[in-house]
């Protein structure tokens, strides 16, 4: 009996860590956009949805399945969806978002931000419902034979306990962590990363140092879309998806970003990880339908109790 409980807890913990790694990467995409631009992007969940469909169609119709086979193929397709969504994000920013953000509004508080919020809400509505028209409402998934097999850890503790790790989820988590490490290197080591961080820190001072703020924002927006899209593709190897999936995950992403402290990239990753753990561990005590409600409650609690997040700090100006 006790061993059964321990096994359930360990299994949920493992599931939480695996889901958390993907959520973490997803949150990093949003955290990047928010950190650099201070824009709340409601369409981030729909960028993820586009990433899922991009991976899906690349895998099925761009000859990737025949070239790389059905084990490696999905991952190639998913990684290729990144650059596609980068371009998409880049152009969305150039055509729409840059009209209401950037140098002109960097200093503004209050009303200046509402335009951004509402604009991205409009983009989200178009993408969701446009997605419904283009892709249809049938559930899709990026199928890989790995999602139906698992590694077994154990048996442990006198052969009573063994934990199963789904192979597809395990690989997705590993790729997420690798992508996270690569992104951190990009942000901290390269010239572009430094420009992004400078633009995030103080847009006006960055302008004086010869950094093109609008270009930095565009790069951050594209990069954020790409990262979230890859995370979405990885998620799609385990979970079926539909055009409206974005709205569920946009809350997950914001919960993670707020938890990690708005503006911190590593914070966003750990925030996403925490959300994954909360979601999976909540299944031990709550019915599965309330999983998402649990996330919202945790999200509200975080906002109320520690709005600066775990890694952020309060900056208040009069």
């Amino acid at each position, binding site marked *: 009996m006790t061993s059964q409980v321990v096994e359930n807890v360990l299994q949920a913990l493992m599931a939480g860590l695996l889901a958390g790694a993907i959520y973490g990467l997803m949150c990093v995409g949003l955290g990047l956009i928010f950190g650099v631009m201070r824009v*709340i992007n409601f369409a981030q969940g729909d960028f993820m949805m586009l990433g899922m469909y991009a991976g899906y169609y690349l895998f099925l119709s761009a000859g990737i399945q025949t070239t790389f086979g059905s084990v490696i193929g999905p991952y190639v397709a998913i990684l290729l969806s990144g650059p596609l969504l980068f371009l998409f994000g880049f152009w969305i920013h150039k055509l*729409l978002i840059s*009209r*209401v953000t950037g140098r002109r509004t960097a200093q503004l*508080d*209050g*009303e200046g*931000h*509402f*335009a951004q*919020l*509402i*604009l991205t*809400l*409009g*983009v*989200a*509505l*178009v*993408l*969701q*419902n*446009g*997605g*419904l*028209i283009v892709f249809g*409402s049938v559930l899709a998934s990026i199928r890989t034979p790995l999602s139906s097999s698992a590694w077994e850890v154990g048996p442990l503790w006198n052969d009573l306990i063994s934990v199963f790790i789904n192979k597809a989820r395990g690989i997705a988590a590993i790729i997420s962590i690798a992508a996270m490490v690569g992104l951190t290197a990009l942000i901290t080591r390269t010239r572009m990363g430094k420009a992004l961080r400078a633009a995030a820190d103080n847009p006006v001072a960055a302008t004086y140092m010869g950094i093109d703020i609008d270009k930095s924002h565009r790069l951050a927006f594209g990069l954020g879309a790409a990262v979230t899209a890859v995370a979405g593709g990885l998620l799609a190897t385990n979970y079926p998806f539909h*055009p409206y999936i974005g*709205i569920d995950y946009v*809350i997950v992403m*914001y919960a993670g970003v*707020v938890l990690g402290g*708005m503006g911190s990239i590593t914070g966003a990753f750990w925030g996403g990880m925490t959300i994954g753990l909360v979601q999976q561990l909540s299944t031990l005590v709550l*019915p599965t*339908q*309330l999983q*998402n*409600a649990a996330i*919202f*409650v945790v*999200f*509200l609690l975080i*906002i*109320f109790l520690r*709005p600066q997040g775990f890694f952020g700090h309060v900056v208040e100006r*009069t």
Partner: protein
Amino acid sequence: MPMLLRALAPTLIAAAVYACLALFVTNSYYQLTLTLVLVWAGFGLSWNLLSGYTGLVSFGHAAFFGLGAYTTALGQIYFDITPWLLIPAAAIVGGVAGLLVGFPTFRLRGHYFALAMLAYPLALLYVFEWLGYQELTLPIKRDNPFAYMQFSDPRVYTLVALVMLLGIVAITRAVERSRFGMALVAIKQNEAAAEAAGIDTLAWKLRSIALSGAIAGAIGAFYAVVLLVVTPQSVFGMLVSAQALTVSMFGGVGSVWGPLIGAAVLIPVAEVLNAELSARLPGIQGVIFGVAIITVILVAPEGVFWKVRDRWMKRRAGAVPAPAAASSQHHVIAFAAAQAKSTVRPERRDGKVLLSVKGLSKSFGGLKAVQNVGFEIHEGMILGIIGPNGAGKTTLFNLLNGFSLPNTGEVLLDGENMVGRKPHELCQAGVGRTFQVMRPFTRMSVRDNVRVGAYVRAASEDEARGLANDAVERVGLVAAADKVAAELTTKELRLMEFARARGQAAAFATRRDAGRPWSWRS
């Protein structure tokens, strides 16, 4: 009251025309569209009452709408209560939900507020799904349809909706014209200044969200009665919250006409497209709303109503030459003279002590900004505080008017320690404040700017108006009184801020007989 009636006249005419139109439409689908236009207009107005006037964008108005809809559905299914009673009940549920949501959420600002509001309806959506209310159908009452609001003639629904909408318009109008509306607009334009002008911002925001939630609840309840089917997605979904926001943004926020225009234009378009194309293009309604939002934000971020109005006002202003600026110049000089006179007035050290500051200190980390400051201000005294940059003058003023808390020391006002009081409470006690960086309510006229301050003391609307006019006259801004604050020169702004502080203070003098009150200038 007759003034309110005159203000409502254009609305009543529009309503009469709409009712006539509705009576001639026999196609039941088009009639439903006519009803829905009114429903979404009412919902937009409820959103507008909170977000339009206070500027706090709510992405979660579906929470109130959905609770109202479920109140009606559950009440009728399980307790067999008539919607005539359930709609008011839903309004109460919505209002209470507004208070419950508002109380914790108003501590948040900007982005955080918007995100938190988004979470409420979505959490409720999952809770109602879990409770097993995936699809509730209201029972059909064939024996007594009227008692259960189940009219065989769909035109009656439109008329009922029209009456409800008129009620909501009247409420919005009444709010707009009272100190309630003034307080909300002041909060939107500058919360710190509003607080310093004596407005209890939290209390007004709570009143606003309670009223807004109540209206949304009632509208949601009526929506359930019209459609007869309630699902979590159709009442708590993202599209519902977005609908309120879209019709208001499209028409223009912060005005009664905005949501009405928005709903009248967008809803029929979306419904017709939905009817014609939804079989082939299932999400077309959402796409239209999305495109509408994007277009409005890029082309006319203030909304159709304001765009048209601004253009019209400009044309009218072009025809009538603006009053000469010279007269206001004259008044400014007069004021300067008066001010100079008051400073040479003999100082009375023996007067009653109004304000006494003892051992006041404030440090930020290692920086000691204000250290052990103490002084007394007697009745009739003017005290200037001077010092080089970084001496801590502004910090001292912030401590005195409650924007920040001192580490040690006390501030005694009429012998009472005021440390720890909020700015608006201090303001009510007689501490006015103007700012180094001026904080006008830019879209309000000079007179209204001053009126906001006067509400602190004035018992009635008329008294506030009187006090404001008085203060405007005293600082010599009569010529500019009807200008919008955004058009003023720096000097005029400074005078206006002084009048605003004086408007409160004058009331202080008349009510408390405490001699000449004073205000701070930082």
